[in-house]
């Protein structure tokens, strides 16, 4: 996601912004799909519809398309800034190279989510050069998805080599210009994301929380000191002032090469921030694969998975080739009326599907689960949130 955006912007600045935004967007994309896929796997263990091979195939298909040479060549070409609409179309098509079919409304919501996740990284990244580390964090995780498929892995490596080649040579100032352009691209987007709100990284007004403590970026001194020098450069006086924050010395520099510790956490887990333990718990539950009792969130995902699992069956000749899956609430007035904090994705998941009898009964069950606000709240895996949507998304991001 970051990459598509960045890519876009740099181009606008007539530099190479494009791959950035694109790759970064697509990373979020990947994360999204991989989550779905982890669900598929789980489903497979229960019902045996989706095989491990199926899952792999879909994931690899998306990544292969995303990182194909032609596509990347196109992406790295300097060109005018994409509009949000164009970008969304590109990402939709990308999704559709797999068997997934997202409804336009779901796609819109997914896009908004990705945009906000990316915006958060841009806003919080302590210095412009950290954009690179964030992007490498993305690519590191993409690489993990395809580690068993050498040719696709090579594509990803090749992309990262190109990014390193093009971007590491940029100066801090150029990266700052890139970042500023991307910030303009995402300006005035104040969509509130439930898990950001819950984690207190986003305010109810949609602004992200800026820290006034912690390490300053490499190259920066902790604020609070004035040094006076004489004409020969000797220090003659030193004074201190209160900085108003509690800053500490910089952390070590992250790795800007193909592999290594990026140090920054930005870009490693877009949805989870402080609640990593929690999502972890959810995940381990899902991984157990025992049909019941299950935490509410994984129950939902299971049903979703079953519905999607049906895709394979339905794609046989003569039947409607694809389900349309709505992952997010489409309450039309929601954005305008600014739902209460924490509720923006509260009743999140609605699913529309083809009028297939079997699917309909599935749907009915799903609808039942998703609309019932009085579900038993015992969630053995420690998720205490009443926001099921957030759980779903958190789960999606733990792979």
């Amino acid at each position, binding site marked *: 996601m970051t990459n598509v955006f960045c890519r876009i912007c740099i*181009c*606008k*600045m*007539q*530099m*190479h912004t494009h791959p950035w935004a694109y790759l970064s967007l697509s990373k979020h994309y990947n994360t999204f799909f991989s989550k779905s896929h982890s669900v598929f796997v789980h489903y497979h263990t229960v019902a045996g519809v989706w095989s491990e091979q199926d899952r792999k195939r879909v994931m690899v298909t998306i990544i292969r398309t995303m990182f194909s040479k032609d596509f990347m060549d196109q992406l790295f*070409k*300097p*060109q*005018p800034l994409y509009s949000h609409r164009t970008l969304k179309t590109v990402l939709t098509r990308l999704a559709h190279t797999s068997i997934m079919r997202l409804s336009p409304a779901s796609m819109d919501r997914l896009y908004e989510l990705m945009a906000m996740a990316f915006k958060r990284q841009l*806003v919080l990244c*302590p*210095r412009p050069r950290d954009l690179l580390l964030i992007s490498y964090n993305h690519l590191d995780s993409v690489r993990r998805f395809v580690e068993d498929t050498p040719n696709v892995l090579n594509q990803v490596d090749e992309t990262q080599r190109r990014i390193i080649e093009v971007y590491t040579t940029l*100066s*801090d*100032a*150029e990266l*700052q*210009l890139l*970042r*500023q*352009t991307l*910030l*303009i691209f995402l*300006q*005035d987007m*104040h969509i509130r994301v439930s898990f950001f709100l819950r984690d207190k990284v986003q*305010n109810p007004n949609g*602004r*992200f*929380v*800026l820290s*006034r403590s912690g390490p*300053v*970026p490499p*190259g*920066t*001194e*902790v*604020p*609070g*000191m*004035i*040094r*006076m*020098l004489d*004409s020969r*450069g000797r220090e003659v006086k030193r*004074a201190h*002032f*209160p*900085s*108003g*924050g509690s*800053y500490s010395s910089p952390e070590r520099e992250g790795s800007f090469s193909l592999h290594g510790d990026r140090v920054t956490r930005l870009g490693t887990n877009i949805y989870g921030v402080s609640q990593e333990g929690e999502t972890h718990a959810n995940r381990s539950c899902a991984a157990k694969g025992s049909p019941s009792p299950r935490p509410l969130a994984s129950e939902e995902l299971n049903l979703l998975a079953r519905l999607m699992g049906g895709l394979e069956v339905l794609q046989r000749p003569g039947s409607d080739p694809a389900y349309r899956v709505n992952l997010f609430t489409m309450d039309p007035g929601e954005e305008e009326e600014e739902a209460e904090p924490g509720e923006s994705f509260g009743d999140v998941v609605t699913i529309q599907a083809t009028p297939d009898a079997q699917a309909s009964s599935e749907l009915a069950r799903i609808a039942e689960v998703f609309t019932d606000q009085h579900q038993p709240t015992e969630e053995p895996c420690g998720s205490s949130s009443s926001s099921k949507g957030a759980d779903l998304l958190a789960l999606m991001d733990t792979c």
Partner: protein
Amino acid sequence: LSKMYHKEKSLQIKNSASALYNNLSVLRIAPRSLTYFTVVHANTVSIVSASWDGLNTSHRQLQSKEPNVATSNSLIMQAAWCVLPSRDLLVLTSQKGIQMYESDGSIMVYWHALDTPETATAQAVFARGIAAVRENYICVGEASGGILVFDIPSKGGNITLSEVLEEHKESITDMASECSGSQECIADMVSADDTGTLCVWKSGEEFQLLNKITGFDMSCSSVKLWKGTVVAGYGTGQIRLYEAVTGILHAEVNAHARWIYSLDIAPFSGLLLSAAEDSFVRVWHLTMTPESNTVEISHMYNECVTDTQICGAKFCDGDGYAFGVTGYDLSEIIRYTQS
């Protein structure tokens, strides 16, 4: 220390501020007891005219659409008022060129197109850095490092490009003229670039380079010139005070935890305002010691604009009695006045 400034009612602006250096300009119209504020939002500029009590405001929007350019809108990099003895002009710099308006934004009096390559290249094209110098010059920086010197007649649109100064190797970030009004200062203007290099100029029919202060590979995002002292703010969060003509470094301040976006000086009182991405605005005091011809800096005041990457901060008057602040994604100008 009691609170030096207190917050006043904010001024709403039509569009939020973009994350650009020095993204707030202020013009005081004393005869009418008005203050004009301008803030850049992507390809538009918001102008707010406010009475001094802040109760009456009026708004105007300017677009970066250029008269003779068929292409789509381009991003604006900076908007600033230029105050010359004979007239005030509002100058906009974008990726396509430079626009000069009458100070209220009503009439565009001049348009200068930048040389843009036919095909897209990796080289950025834009203008940034605006300064009014002495009687009749307005200087504007370019991404290529060039500085365009425009000769401004006392009225009308017969503005001419009189000179291009080619000393900087990297994109110009900001420029400033001597703001104390003192005729004793030799240097008239300072220009800064993306490597932190500072050039000190004497104006005239031909501008003369007085000194070049080499940077340290870090952007100088905002620069000021006061009583012969260059005040420079950097991406490292540092503020440095140099003697303009000698380049002697007098003071080094670890001022902010993130990139500095804006500096301003109240010339009569010597108050210095600094603002950064770290959400802090700080007020400093500069004092000249005439005997040794050195400058000292002391810290006066902190203000935190919670969760705001500040991109513009300017004093509203020459004494530093009031200042305005805005930040990325913020649709207001927050005003502070001395208690």
